[in-house]
Structures are given as C-alpha cells and as structure tokens.
C-alpha cells in the first residue's frame, strides 16, 4: 500500500494556499502512550501538513533537553519501534496527513532494515528521516531506503559545504530539511542568521521543497521563516506544549503557528 507522493502533494497544497507548509514533530506516545494517537490527530486537525513521528532512542545525541526527556519518558512507558508503527497504523485509519518516521539508525538496524521498510509502508508511512545517517555514510543502506516507497528526507546543516549541500538537496526525497543552526533540537529566543540565503540556494538546487527547522517555537519566528522557505518544522515547542499543557495545549500551539504562515 504505497501512498503516492503524499508529502509533495501536501507541500503543493500549502503553496497553492500561498503559505508555507507546517511540519510538526511528535515523539511517539508522548505525553503518555494512551494519548499518543490523540496528539497526532490534534496536530493534524490543528493544521499540520506533515507529521514527523519520532521513534524514541536511548541516546538521542542530536536532541536538546525537551526531546531527550520525552524520549526517556516514553521508553520508560514501553514505547519502541513496533509500538510507534502500530500508532501510525491507528492514525492512518483516522487521518490522511502524510507521516515521516523520524528515528536514529540503531532501532531500525536492530529491527532489520528490509523488515522495517515493509512494516513502515504497510503502516502508512510516507517518508523516513534518520538523524545519524548523513549522505554517503552507508551507500548500501541508503540504496535500500531510496529504492523503497518511502521518501528519504535528508538534512543539511549551516556547516555543510556548498557543493555537498547541493548534492544532498539533489538526493533528498519528500523535502529537504535545513537545520537553521548548529546545535541540538530545542526552542531558542532568537532565529539564526543567514537562513534566507541558504534556503534560496537550496531551493535552486533541489527538486523538492525546502523546510527549515531547529529553534522555531513562536508565531513570530514561524512567520519570519515562512517568508523564506517552503515549510517550517516545529518539534520541541510542540513536545513541550504536550508535556506541560496536554494534547489541547499542543493543538493550540499548532493552530497559532499555522495562522502565522501566510505569505500575504
């Protein structure tokens, strides 16, 4: 059951509405496993165009304190990769919003790469993003992912050299994830500088849309980035809202951010 180009279509729809797309990250099973489905549905209904479903890992070395804590909490509560796929299957029965599975490499290796791809596709996943699998780190593995029905979303950092950035952009599926700053995930009071220029360059080099993430938590930041990019990615702010104000609080944040994305 392949869902043809669902991510691209979601970005196209946002563009047709003259706004940036909203990509929302949620740690699977957070704030509590029994609320995991409600959190995804709430994000979708409040305006998320694409959902990144985070598979918790014991050693989330690219994540800041918010997502670290969420990961540890849900692992403690029994969430693992098969559980996250089951959550996705449930979600897919209720909503059509494209979903990118967001994971570190080890849980997928442990599960088995080919087994994972078929289980993820079967559960209704559209894309895959692996934090610690940079381009060309493992050509054999990357070929398996790239030749699967899943879009392999690639990350580009401010430190990525120009030629490599173009190369990554050309190999990214679904969208390109531009990391707005060096550092781990998490809310910041100010946006990084130089985003506009980088994004413009990447858009020229890429056949897929360019979305910007890391450090976006407020409507002002969302609005500023929405003027430069095809999409914005919100992770820690949503996880933080879920943790502190529950599913309703998360939904409220997403609705606010979604309202800030118009290009006027």
């Amino acid at each position, binding site marked *: 059951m392949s869902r043809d180009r669902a991510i691209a279509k979601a970005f196209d729809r946002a563009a047709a509405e003259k706004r940036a797309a909203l990509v929302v990250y949620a740690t699977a099973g957070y704030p509590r496993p029994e609320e995991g489905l409600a959190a995804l549905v709430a994000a979708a209904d409040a305006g998320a165009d694409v959902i990144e479903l985070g598979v918790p890992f014991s*050693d989330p*070395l*690219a994540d800041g304190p918010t997502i670290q804590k969420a990961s540890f909490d849900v692992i403690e509560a029994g969430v693992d990769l098969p559980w996250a796929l089951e959550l996705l299957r449930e979600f897919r029965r209720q909503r059509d919003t494209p979903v990118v599975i967001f994971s570190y490499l080890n849980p997928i*290796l442990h599960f088995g790469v080919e087994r994972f791809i078929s289980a993820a596709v079967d559960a209704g996943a559209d894309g895959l993003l692996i934090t*610690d699998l940079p381009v060309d*780190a493992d050509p054999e593995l990357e070929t398996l992912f790239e030749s699967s029905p899943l879009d392999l979303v690639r990350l580009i*950092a401010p*430190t990525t050299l120009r030629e490599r950035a173009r190369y990554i952009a050309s190999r990214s599926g679904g969208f390109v994830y531009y990391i707005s700053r060096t550092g781990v995930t998490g809310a910041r009071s100010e946006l990084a500088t130089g985003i506009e220029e980088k994004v413009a360059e990447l858009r020229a080099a890429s056949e897929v849309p360019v979305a910007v993430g890391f450090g976006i938590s407020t409507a002002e930041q969302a609005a500023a980035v929405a003027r430069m990019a095809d999409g914005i990615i919100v992770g820690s702010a949503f996880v933080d809202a879920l943790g502190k104000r529950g599913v309703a609080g998360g939904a409220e944040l997403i609705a606010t951010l979604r309202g800030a994305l118009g290009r006027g």
Partner: protein
Amino acid sequence: MIVLSSARDLVADRFGLFGGRFVPETLISALDELTAVYADASADPSFREELEALWKDYVGRPTPLYRAERLGEAAGGAEVWLKREDLNHTGAHKINNALGQVLLARRMGKRRIIAETGAGQHGVATATVCALFGLECVVYMGEEDIRRQALNVFRMRLLGAEVRSVDSGTRTLKDATNEAIRDWVTNVTDTHYIIGSVVGPHPYPAMVRDFQSVIGIEARNQCLERTGQLPSVVVACVGGGSNSMGIFHPFIGDRNVALVGVEAAGDGVDTPRHAATLTLGKPGVLHGSFSYLLQDEHGQVAGAHSISAGLDYPGVGPEHSYLKDSGRATYVSATDAEALNAFQQLARLEGIIPALESAHAIAYVLREGARWAGRGPMVVCLSGRGDKDVAQVAEMLGQ
C-alpha cells in the same frame, strides 16, 4: 617510530564492516577537516618530531617494560612483563592521544577543547594538555562517575578545566559522551572534541589508535631487546579499547603473537550487570560508529556496569569488532570481584597499585597465567595507576 595514517589510508572509513560516520550532518564538515588536517600532519616530519619530543620530555616515554617475577610466580609460572603506562605523566596512557590531538587542534586554529571522561583519566590528560597549550577546556563526566572518581574531578579543576556533570541516562561514560557530542554539534566551528578512545566517527578510531600505537611499538622493541623473542601473548583491558588497540596494533602482523582483550564482566557475564560488549553485544550504531554494542530487545542501548568507571561503557571501538570477527584477537572478561582481587594482589606482589581498569588485565594473568607458562613472554598493558581508585576500593573493602 610511530606510523601515522596517510591521506590514502584515511580514505577508508571502515574496518571491514565496522566503523563509519553515523553522526548528525552538522558534524560532517568538522570530521572532513579533522581528517584532512591529520593527513597533512602525518606527512609533516615536524608534527611527528614535536609529538615525540613531548612524549619524551613531558610524558616520560618510553615507559619501561618490567619483568613482574612475583606476579608471574603467583600466576602459575608465566613469564609476565608489564608495559608500564602507569608511569606516564598524569598516570595513564590517555596522555599519548591527548597530546597528539591537541597539536591537531592547534593546527586547526581551534581554541576551545571538549572531552568526555569515565574514570577521569582522559579528562585529566585533556585538562593537562589544555593547560600546557593555554586552551579553554570543558570535560563532560557522568554524575555517578564524579561521585566515584572525586580525586580526578579535583585534579581537572586544579588544571583549569571546567567539569560539567551529566545527569541524564546512565550518568556514566555513555551519557557523558552524548553530552560532549551535543556540545560539539553546537560549537563545532571553534571547538575540537578530543575523544579519548578508539571510538566515535571516522577518523577518530584510526587516529586515536595511531597515537596509542606508541605503546605497542615500544613494547615490541623492548620485548625483542630484553628476551630476544616476540611475546607469545599480549594482554590488555578493553572498555572503548584505546590502550588495547594501541598495544595490539603493532603486533597484528606477527601471526604467532596471540592478542587477548579483557572486558569488564561486572557481576558476571551470566548476569545483566556487565560491560562485556564484544562477548555479549550485537553490532549496532552508537556515538558515530557501527560496532558491537550492548542493546536490549528494542535496539535501545543497554546500561553497562563495571566496578571500573573507565570500562563502564556499552560500546567498543570498531577495529576491535573487526579483530574479533576476523579471529585475530580473542576477547575474554574478568568480573568486578576478580579485578578487585587483582588490584590487591599486584599491590602486594609487586608494589604496584594498578588502575581498576588495568586490574582486569592482571586478573586474566592470575586466572590464565598457568596456560601461558613455558611458552615465552606474556606482555601485559598496565594502562594506568590506581591512585584514583584507592578511596573507592577502601570503601568497597569496608575500610
């Protein structure tokens, strides 16, 4: 003379299946830069001269190869030779690598240094070289290790380093390493990360091995000089695996020399509390490389346990995984109790108090020495001294 990897050697980022660069994209340019700068330094005689001069005059190399006769007698008549890395400045082999890397940091113009530490020996070595070169130094250390290695924490602070306590996850070396990587991802443009073992993404495992191979090069020459033959076996403890990789590497081509790595078995390999990664792990990705890894049934990294903070790590250097699978090296383990016994035995028999890490290698000698008796020299890496462990051992022995 040590052999540093050339640009050509550094093209390959794997040891067989193991190794690689499984890190966030943000770090790729820094790893490329480090690889290029290291390759340049390898080809530059002045780099080697400066490093060797520091090893000699500052560290006190070469370290002796010492015939431990009373230990040998107690170990069933084996001919035991100890490679005395415990006599290095700062008390362990860690300084060999820290000096090499700080010279590279200087070449890269990076003025801020970060490190992770378990037992504190690598943290002390890094703080020392930063003091020597006037660089800012931040060391990440797990809360649990700060408790059991208070002396080393104070030493690092005396040397001008900032020690940051890590209270996430296991509160030991694994999570200290996570936190150091997070710092590096954030401050990568002005910071060099001095990894203390043969772990992490390429080029670290090859580079740290090269710097530590001075141990094996000296030991091989000394053994030939003193005994007229190569050792029958080389023994070293394995956590991440830097002292063992350093002493093994120059012997890899000597096919008749057995290589034995001793992992920490904690409460025992038949219990859940151990750090015997090569003995019981399964290949996976942690801290940037693909290698044997202790993990649970969901692919989460399992907490390790060892009496020794320096071996309390669920991963292991990828080249060890390669040596294990190729059969060139053999990996065994010693329990906390065996290590604690060896710690005391070496003190009584030889007047040498070993680090708890190194005591695992001594425990193997005591347990298996009789098997090696009459078969030629047994060279054992005494990777560090035990001053740092005295308070912890006193507590454990109820004194």
